[in-house]
């Protein structure tokens, strides 16, 4: 089963990219995610590994995942190493000045689980879709707030520079 959600954020791609690729931020904006821990020395980038869990129905589901694609300020994809099969992708695309389209793709399932597995994927889809939508909304709010803080900081610095 593959799910797809997107949102437009009023911020430049770099700001969005820096925010989503920093593992310290994940628990702040990813809805339903109860664990996101760095495994090993590498915190981010191609080959970084995380132990993650997301609440789906009655269970916290997840496992060890690894970043398998990392194109700066454009694409980051991950794939599961252990646990339930999953592949995810962030796509970050510039729409114009201070406008960025962010897309989150998520595919999941259990290989070999047959018809029951497919049924469970169908049942899980609405809940996961809600988590993804909330995650993007929270990401938008937090990144735009950060953008506003940065702009305000710059204006304050300019004012202080002018009065000095």
């Amino acid at each position, binding site marked *: 089963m593959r799910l797809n959600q997107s949102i437009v954020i009023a911020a430049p791609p770099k700001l969005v990219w820096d925010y989503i690729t920093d593992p310290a931020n994940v628990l702040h904006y990813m809805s339903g995610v109860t664990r996101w821990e760095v495994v090993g020395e590498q915190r981010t980038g191609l080959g970084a590994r995380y132990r993650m869990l997301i609440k789906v129905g009655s*269970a916290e589901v997840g496992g060890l995942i690894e970043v398998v694609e990392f194109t700066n300020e454009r694409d980051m994809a991950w794939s599961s190493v252990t646990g339930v099969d999953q592949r995810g992708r962030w796509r970050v695309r510039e729409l114009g000045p201070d406008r960025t389209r962010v897309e989150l793709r998520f595919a999941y399932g259990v*290989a070999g689980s047959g018809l029951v597995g497919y*049924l*469970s994927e169908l049942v*899980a889809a609405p809940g996961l879709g809600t988590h993804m939508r909330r995650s993007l909304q929270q990401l938008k709010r937090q990144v735009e707030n950060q953008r506003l803080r940065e702009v305000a900081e710059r204006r304050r610095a300019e004012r202080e520079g002018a009065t000095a």
Partner: protein
Amino acid sequence: MADPATLAEESKHNGGGSHGSSSGAHPSGAGQPPLQAAGRLGAGIARAGGRALDAGRSVAGAALGKLVDRAREALTADLDDRDPDYIRENLPLSWLAATLWYRAEVRNMGNVPEDGPVLLVGNHSGGNMAPEVIILPLAFSTFFGVERPFYQLAHNLVLASPVGPFLRRYGTMAASHEHATRALEAGAAVLVFPGGDWEVHRPSWERHKVDLAGRKGWVKLALANDVPIVPVVTVGGQETALFLSRGGWLAKLSGADKYLRLKVIPISIALPWGLNVGDLLGHIPLPAKITIEVLAPIDLREQFGPEPDIDEVYEHVTGIMQDALSGLAAERRFPVIG
């Protein structure tokens, strides 16, 4: 295999006996042809009867022997019987049952230590269709991954039943100190419901009571292997049917307590049977909301000193389990609905 062979041997001798007696009739009937013929006919019938009896006894003996062998095999504990791939492929089924039927909620699974051997001690509810038996292994396997070995101790009869082979692949073992020790020594997590059949069939009006029946083997097990205990409390299981009585008197009267280690023959009102005596065929559980809370781990020697008192530990752990269960019960507004 000795049992069916012995039975078959005995049945052969019995058949031979009937043949011998007919042979013995022959000399006494010498010189009396009609009687001789009758004797031969009688001997033939006796031989045929003997052979039929032989065959019948052999079949019965072999069948009984197979059953005994199967039961014996079911009660052994080979850690290799647990099949992580099988568990993984069946996670969706357990997840569907837990999510859609029981609306299950599992809290604080992170209280289980990240690695190493640990003994999970739970209260047991819901008769022979106990919901936590599905939900807890699911929660453990999705949280820690099927790669982390996890075994559950169960009553001998459960493993000797037709579902036994499936349960063994999930890591279910016949409950014994030896089996649990073997799993803990291998670094596994082990789940035990000390109250067993006594607690799981308690009447519905005692649904918010932890009743481990004074069984303290789990304390000795944790101390002998020096592993932490993680208490686990479940609420809602005793609302999946109307449990009326454990039927302890029925177990004594029938001898089931002596021969099958069954202290109870429960009586309940359950789907689809109506009045359900014994619950041997299980029942369709009502879709009661199940909430499970995993409590903080307890290092017995750290908390009770180098030589902990078994009774004190038992009272302490059952006490905190009862407090947690009362807390979960207080959150419920309606039976079944939760």
